[in-house]
Structure formats: C-alpha cells, structure tokens
C-alpha cells in the first residue's frame, strides 16, 4: 500500500538503504563481538562499590539500625541523607493519593527489598559483607499482600494517612443500561500474574562528580535519561544543569529502565559526599525481589452480546496491584486507569462501563512493561470473546470478524474516544485464520491425537496505541508530558552526518533505523551516519524511549532536521554550481543542476574549510540543524496484529506445547522490516512468558517467592517457536513516512491467543482457565476439578 512517490527523492539510487530496507543492524558489529559498553563495564579511578541493606520484611516499623563499630563510616542511612527529598510521582487525575518514597527508608518499610542502608567498600563482595553485618530491628506489621482484600474495610494500610489503600479509582461509562437485556451475558473473573521484566542487563549506576564542570555525572542503565535528570534534580535539590546523565549501551529496557531509582539518588548523594566515584550494579536477586514488577491485574467482567455474537456492551471492574509506591514519572495509576480507556480495543459496541482501582500493597512498585496494560486487557477481553463465541455457537474468529472496526470506518473514534488512524483489522484476522487453518485443526480434533494430548486453536487481536502525544498525556498530569520531539543533524567537515536524539536505543536498533531515515532524506551512506543518544549533555531534551514512540517521534524529528539541513546544503550547492537555487535538487547525496553536481562532502568542505566560497546570503546556521517534530495529530498511531496459535495440551501432566504460531501485523510503513521482525520475535517470547511461565507469587506476609531464576521461569529458545509472520502495511495518515510504533505489540497478544488455544483444547473436558500463567499445575488442577464436577455426587 505504500507509494514510493510519497517519499522525498533525496535517497534516489541509494534507496537500498532508506526507509523500507532490510538493513543489518549497524550496532550489532559492536554488540555481537562483546564490544558494547554497559554501565558495569565502566572503570573509573577510585571507584568503590555499593551494596544495600534491604528490608527482609514487607511491612514493618524500623526500631533501629545497628551498624557494627568497625563499619561506621561505610554505612549510610536515611539520617545521613538530610536534605534529600523523597521520590514523588503525582498524577493530576482527581482523587489520586500521593505516596512519598524515601530513597532510604524512614520510619517504616513498605516492601521486601526496600532500601534501608547503603554500604560502601572497595568491592561489591566486601560491601555485601558489610551489609550482612548490619542488623535491623524491625517490628513487623500485617502485610497488604492481596490487592482485592486491600480494598476491604479493616485492611492494614500501606500509607496510614490515606485511610484506605487506593491510589486512584476511575469510572468511565457510556450508558450500559441498553445492554442489560442482551440474550448472551457472560461473566467471569480473570487475572494475570505479577511479573518481573527481566532484561538481560539489570539496572546499574555509576556516579561521579566533575569539579571542573561543577557537575554530577550519573551513568545509569536508563531508557529516559532526560527524565531521570529532572527527577534526580528534584530529589537532590540541584539545578538540572549541574547534572549529566549518561546512559551507555543498555541491554533491554521494557519499562524497567524508565523509572527514577532510589539507588540513583543514593549514589548521586554518596559520590558528592565522598568525593570519589561509586557504583551499584543490580544483581538478579535484587531485580526479582526488590526493584519493580508488572502486569498484576484482576478483572471482574461481563460481556453482553446478541445471539449472532454481536457485542451489546461490556461491564468491567478492573483492579491493578500498584505496589507500595508511585514510581517516577509514570505514577501508580497509569496502568489501571489505562485499562478503562483501552479495554474495548478495536471492537464496536454501543455500551461500556469500566471502573478501575489502582491499589497500594506491600510489594514493589508496578511499572508499565512492554504492552503496558494492553497485555492484561487483551487477555481479559479475548478470553471473554471466546466464551461469547461458545454461547453463540460460532467460531471464535467469526465473532471477531462481526465486531471489529471496519476499514471504511477509518479514521475511527471508538467508544472511549480513542482515535484509530488507519488499518484493516478484519483483514488481519482473516489472514491469521487462513494461515493457521482453523478448519484443519477442527478436522484433527475430530480424529484425536495418537499420544493422548488434545490440540486447540486460539486467536487474539489488539490495537497498540503508540507515540502518545501531548493531548494524550497532558490529561494524566504526571511529571512527564511529551511535546515536540527534537533531533540535531550536523554534516561533518568530511561529509559525514551526526545525529543527536534524546530517545535511547536498548535493543530497538535505532542506530540503524534512524540512519536509514537520514539516508532517505539526504542520501548519505548509512555507514557514514553516526547516531548519538543516551547522554543529556549531547542530545536534545526528550521524554525518551517508551510507549513505542521513538521511530514515530525521533524518526520524524530526524527527517525534519535532515530536510532543513538538505535545504541549506542545496542552497550552498546552487552557489557552487552557479545556479539559481530553484534549478537544483538534492538527490542521492548530491546537489544536481544542468551544469553538473556537487556532493554533500564538497558542500561541507566549503562551509567549514572554504567559507570564502559561500553565497553571501548563506544561512548562518550552517550545516547544523536542530528541528522539532510532532505528527499532524498527536493522539498516537494505532498498529495492530492478529495472533493465532495451535497448542497441544497434555491433560495428565498439564504440559502445553505450542505447535504453530501465526502473526499478521500491520505497523504502517516499516523503516526496517527486519528490525520489526526482531521486535515481534522478542515480544512474542515475552508474551509466551506471560502466558505459560512467568510469575512472581507472594505469601501472606508479603514475601516474594520466586527469588532466583530457578523459581522465576523465563522462556528460553526451546520454549519459543519460530512464528510465521505476515505483514500488512497501512500507512498512518498523520506521521512522517506513514510509520507507526510497533515496539510492544509482540508482547500483547500471545497470552490471549495461547490461553484461548488451551481452553479450546480442553473445552470438551469442561475445563476453563482464566488466569495467567497457565502452568502444568493449574491445568491438572482444572482437569481434576472438572472431572470431580462431572462425577455424580456420592
């Protein structure tokens, strides 16, 4: 659907590197040879390591912190951090209750793993020895470990002065009364487990102070360095100019690296206090226990439909376990409140009601993880649609086709006023149904399996709003609202191109894809384009990389800056060619006129080295441009995909094997389809984790139970099948090149598709699983329960 004519022509014959090219990633040469530089690779003279004393209890009063005499001077507590402000992430939504997260605990601890004291030593092992010697005198309080019980009167309170445990309640309704007499009414409770985001690289911080610049430099494995700087400055009471955040190579973010960490504040304070660099590297145990979780949702949901499967309305009460504190900058309410606005997804319905609760518990904060609330929402709604299909006697795919927004309705405002920019959702679903061969599965199910397993097929579809702009985020009233995105482009004296962007790349391949955008605009060889990111001193302000925004926003900004740069070069080139500027064009890295051509390299040489040859009216800004960009509409791009899975379930052992997996994806115009494929594979792996493996359970005392990777299971290569991908390409009418954000989608739909397939396989046994992950134990438990239910009472 993409038309080459819509694109600038500067790429010309070099278009093999421009938008749409399947270019190998430039950064992989460094990363795959072990030459990446991550925070833990940084070596600074005089560097010392920090280990933290963390709370062993979920909820307790701190009666005392006893530091052995020999370690005095190496241990720091809240009492030492006078003048350091707690982390406050406030939402402007009415009724939001504010939590203050002290960077080192004061008075009481509210989660296992909360920082209580900071221990400094020449090595991490010695720092851990000190931490082990510090004794905490804690008076245990009843823990708030269950988000639903937390709302009941009489519950223990995480923040006493609130009077309850609810960060925020929201209500949304488009008159539900007309749906109540629908002939099909299905009600269920559905839940998704708490998860850990588990990037390959954990968080890490190196802090040092530069007296010449009078500047704190914080190296941090962070995906939003400019936001980290603002938050850090607020906590430390410092001018933002006195802080530089450098985020070097980052081994996966997924949201975990979006928040301001108390550790970042602590180490910043410590290096200024001690006068030497300090380091903290998150280990896997800290990641699992202490830092942040995601995904814990509960839905009480009723779906109303007509006999033909058409939706009449949805009524839902959703609860999200937000943990003890509101994290900076996304706040404790983003996840739950988002549920209300995105639950209807790409479906048509005349009535809708949703009430949400963001609940405080004695667990670590919940953060938006790849897909944010969409994974839970998709799970809840798509499981319910399969039940509607069963009630209506229809194939699940057919129920979707009867309710999806139609292409001729685009652009489309759905029942929660989400503005869908473009797309053909039914076509994606039809292609997925055809590719997975539902009829073939039904035939196979009739025959049965020789090995006694049962097979099932499941589908799911979602929309992924990406690159949310000012109009979307200003309403949240949180510490961060994206505005115009900026990029700087500079031709170097030898004709190379430097691009500076404030977003970050932690697996997305932006050193390649942004270079492709620049190539598309200027024709500069991708190999000669350097992308500079991850450093507040070197890049324009940006809210950073989150919400699948970088290619839309930074890509648009790079294109805008390159366009302006190209225009300036063209005017210089016209002078060198002794042409009227109107008679020359920039094409394939050259300015061309009827007399001949001059390369960007020659133009750059003239600007920097032979200014005497420049036209008198040359733009004095030269060959360096900072330009800003916003899409024509900033309500976000809507990419989407239909997923379809075939599974085999062993009802005796509870094991689930994915036999086939199909994804039909539409992310608008793809800058680099190979990078997009990689994003989808990675997202699928995480989605399979949500569906079948990943779970951080807590006991009634608020203790996290999966404290090592032997207990917290992540899918590995043998658990992730190679999906069959099919791409559609409906450009966004609002963005540069028609691109859409696609970073998260792979992780959204798999739990729903896989759960639907498992339920399809086990439905003849009377089994229904409404909870993720679907573990062998849960399958067997459900099979036995169904068997008991069938047996006549004795």
């Amino acid at each position: 659907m993409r038309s080459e004519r819509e694109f600038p022509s500067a790429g010309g014959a070099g278009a093999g590197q421009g938008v749409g090219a399947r270019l190998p990633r430039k950064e992989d040469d460094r990363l795959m040879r072990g030459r990446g530089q991550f925070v833990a690779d940084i070596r600074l003279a005089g560097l010392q390591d920090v280990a933290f004393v963390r709370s062993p209890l979920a909820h307790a009063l701190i009666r005392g912190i006893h530091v052995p005499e020999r370690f005095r001077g190496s241990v720091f507590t809240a009492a030492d951090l006078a003048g350091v402000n707690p982390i406050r992430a406030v939402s402007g939504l009415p009724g939001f209750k504010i939590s203050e997260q002290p960077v080192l605990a004061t008075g009481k601890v509210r989660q296992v793993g909360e920082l209580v004291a900071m221990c400094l030593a020449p090595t991490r092992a010695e720092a851990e020895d000190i931490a082990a010697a510090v004794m905490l005198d804690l008076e245990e309080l009843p823990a708030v470990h269950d988000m639903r019980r937390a709302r009941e009167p009489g519950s223990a309170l995480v923040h006493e002065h609130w009077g309850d445990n609810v960060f925020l309640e929201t209500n949304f309704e488009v008159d539900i009364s007309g749906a109540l007499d629908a002939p099909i009414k299905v009600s269920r409770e559905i839940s998704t487990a708490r998860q850990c985001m588990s990037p390959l690289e954990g968080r890490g911080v190196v802090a040092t102070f530069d007296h010449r610049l009078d500047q704190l430099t914080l190296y941090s494995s962070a995906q939003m360095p400019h936001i980290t700087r603002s938050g850090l400055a607020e906590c430390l009471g410092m001018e933002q100019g006195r802080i530089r955040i450098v985020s070097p190579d980052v081994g996966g973010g997924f949201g975990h690296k979006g928040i301001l960490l108390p550790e970042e504040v602590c180490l910043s304070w410590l290096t200024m206090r001690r006068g030497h660099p300090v380091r903290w590297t998150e280990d896997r145990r800290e990641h699992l226990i202490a830092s942040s979780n995601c995904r814990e949702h509960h839905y009480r949901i009723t779906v109303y439909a007509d006999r033909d499967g058409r939706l009449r309305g949805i009524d839902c009460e959703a609860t999200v376990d937000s943990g003890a504190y509101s994290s900076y900058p996304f706040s404790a309410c983003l996840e739950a409140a988002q549920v209300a606005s995105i639950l209807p997804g790409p479906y048509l319905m005349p009535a809708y009601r949703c009430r949400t609760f963001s609940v405080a518990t004695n667990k670590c904060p919940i953060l938006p993880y790849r897909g944010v609330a969409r994974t839970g929402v998709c799970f809840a709604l798509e499981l319910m649609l399969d039940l509607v299909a069963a009630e209506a006697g229809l194939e699940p795919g057919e129920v979707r086709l009867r309710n999806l927004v139609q292409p001729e309705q685009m652009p489309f405002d759905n029942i929660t006023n989400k503005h869908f920019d473009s797309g053909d959702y039914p076509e994606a679903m039809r292609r997925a149904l055809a590719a997975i061969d539902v009829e073939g599965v039904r035939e196979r199910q009739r025959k049965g399996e020789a090995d006694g397993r049962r097979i099932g097929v499941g589908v799911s579809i979602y929309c992924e709003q990406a690159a949310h702009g000012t109009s979307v985020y200003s309403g949240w009233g949180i510490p961060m609202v994206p505005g115009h995105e900026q990029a700087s482009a500079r031709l170097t004296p030898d004709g190379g191109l430097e691009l500076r962007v404030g977003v970050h790349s932690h697996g997305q391949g932006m050193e390649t894809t942004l270079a492709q955008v620049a190539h598309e605009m200027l024709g500069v060889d991708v190999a000669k384009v350097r992308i500079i990111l991850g450093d507040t001193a070197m890049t324009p302000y940006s809210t950073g990389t989150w919400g699948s925004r970088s290619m839309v926003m930074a890509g648009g900004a790079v294109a805008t800056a390159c366009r302006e740069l190209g225009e300036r070069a063209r005017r210089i080139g016209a002078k060198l060619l002794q042409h009227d500027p109107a008679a020359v064009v920039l094409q394939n890295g050259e300015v061309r006129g009827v007399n001949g051509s001059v390369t960007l390299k020659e133009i750059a040489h003239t600007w920097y080295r032979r200014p005497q040859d420049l036209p008198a009216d040359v733009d004095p800004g030269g060959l360096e441009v900072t330009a800003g960009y916003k899409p024509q509409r900033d309500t976000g791009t809507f990419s989407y995909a239909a997923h379809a899975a075939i599974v085999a379930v062993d009802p005796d052992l509870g094991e689930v094997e994915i036999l086939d997996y199909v994804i039909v994806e539409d992310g608008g115009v793809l800058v680099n389809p190979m990078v997009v494929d990689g994003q989808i594979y990675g997202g699928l792996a995480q989605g399979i984790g949500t569906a079948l493996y990943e779970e951080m359970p807590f006991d009634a005392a608020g203790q996290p139970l999966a404290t090592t990777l032997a207990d917290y299971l992540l899918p590995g290569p043998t658990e992730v099948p190679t999906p069959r991908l099919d791409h559609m390409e409906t450009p966004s009418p609002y963005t540069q090149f028609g691109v859409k954000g696609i970073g998260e989608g792979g992780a959204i739909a798999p739990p729903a598709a896989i759960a639907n397939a498992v339920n399809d396989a086990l439905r003849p046994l009377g089994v229904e699983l409404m909870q993720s992950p679907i573990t062998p134990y849960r399958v067997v438990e459900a099979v036995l329960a169904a068997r008991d239910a069938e047996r006549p009472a004795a």
Partner: protein
Amino acid sequence: MKPAPFGYECPRDLQAALAVLGEAKASAKIIAGGQSLGPMLNLRLVEPQLIVDISGLAELKQVERRGDELVLGACVTHADIEDGRIPDVTRGAMQRVAGNIAYRAVRNRGTVGGSLSHADPAADWVSALSALGARLTLRSLSGARMVTMEDFIVGALESALRDGEMVETIHVPAMPASAHWGYAKSCRKTGEFAHAIGAILIDPSAATARVVIGAIESAPIVITSAAELFGGRIAGDYKGRFDARVADVLLAKAGVSNAAHRHIHVNVLKRAVSEAAA
C-alpha cells in the same frame, strides 16, 4: 550476590583432600563441578569457612568395570556419560539420563558425585541411580564404607555423609538383558529441575522391579517390592497391570497432600512404565 569470605584448598590427591577435610576445624564444603554450590555460595545460602576443591583429583575421575558392576569416580561429569566416554553397563539408560540433565553447560562441569552429595530430590541421578540399584563408596580419613542409594539419600538436600567424608565411587550394577528400563520426568521447561520423576527397572522374567517416584519434597520413594503396583505380580503384561491408585496412595503416605501434584507424579511414573514396556 557475592559469597561471604571463605578459605580455599586445592589438595593434590585424594588422601590430601581427606586430610584437609578431616583436620578442618572450620565448617568445610567440597566443591567439584560447583553447579549447585556456586549459586548457593553467591546467594549466601551456605557460608562455609573452607572450600575444598576436588575437581582436579585424577583418582575421582577413574572408571572401571569390576565384575558385574561399573565403578565410577565421583568426579565423572554428566557430559562424560552423555558423550559415551565411560563403558555402558545399563544398555544406554545412564547415557539417556545424563543427556537430559539441565543444560549442556551444566553437564560439562557437573559431576555425578556432586549431584548425589547435594541430594536435591529433583536431581536426575538421585532417582535414576536409586532405580538402577547403585551403591556408593564413602571415604574419610578413618576408612571407607559402602551404602545403598536408599540409605544414602536421607531427605531433601540431606545425605548420609558424615563430617570429613566424601563420595568416592558410584557402583552401578550391569543391567541384565532381560530387564526393561523406563525413565520419565516433567519439567516446566527444557533444562529446569523436574517437578516429577518416574524411574523403573523391571525384569519380568525374574519377577523383580525397582520403582522410583522422585522429585518430591523429600527423599525419593523407592519401591523394591513392587508387585502391588502391578496388581500383585510382576510379569510381561506389567504395563497393562500398572495400578495408578497404588502409586497415589504411596505418594499420599509420603506426604504429598496435593491431589494435582500426586496426579502429575503418578502419570509421570506411568510414562516411565510405558517406556519400559515399549
């Protein structure tokens, strides 16, 4: 996740190792492949004052066939067995078990003796060698003693090893040509510890069987008088006679109170029986 400080000794031979262990005044731990002890040290789940490294001891890597049994040194690795570098007296049974232990990286370093000494109920050798009827030689400065697998594994992470004592050799009886072997396990994912193991060595012609239900939260259930599991007699039709209810009762008696867990264990054992009969 860094270990607490510990002393480290790397003795040159077995006698020296036993001497270090026997004379140690402090708490000591033996390290061989380190695949369990390494993480436990890092997590500070154990904080020994002394680590005695036996991974270089040639005596513990020897393998020989003595009459009707194979004698394996404790430091033989899972990969040694997987790759067929040791004589096969079990008609491939041990090789197949070895090849499915954890991941190749673990198999390269992990040792049979180390795995048994750690006595994790979910470890493959704990169940497989119990079913194969293996015995162990345990040696200390004061001499050697021989114990059966059943006597060696006392409980979860509990063995019969005394202070100053180590596993020296593992004695695996040669499998008769008339015997059938079945081994099955269920793991959440490839390479993870099993949450259910079933193992069976059955000889219908001799009407004998050793049956093991493993990966429970205590020592594996080792059934040496197994006729009851097969309707009262062990014969060629044992597969059809397998009585899941008997296995279920054994599990309940062993303290497995959850019906779904018992169901999984019983069905894994059933798979092992089917494999033996195939």
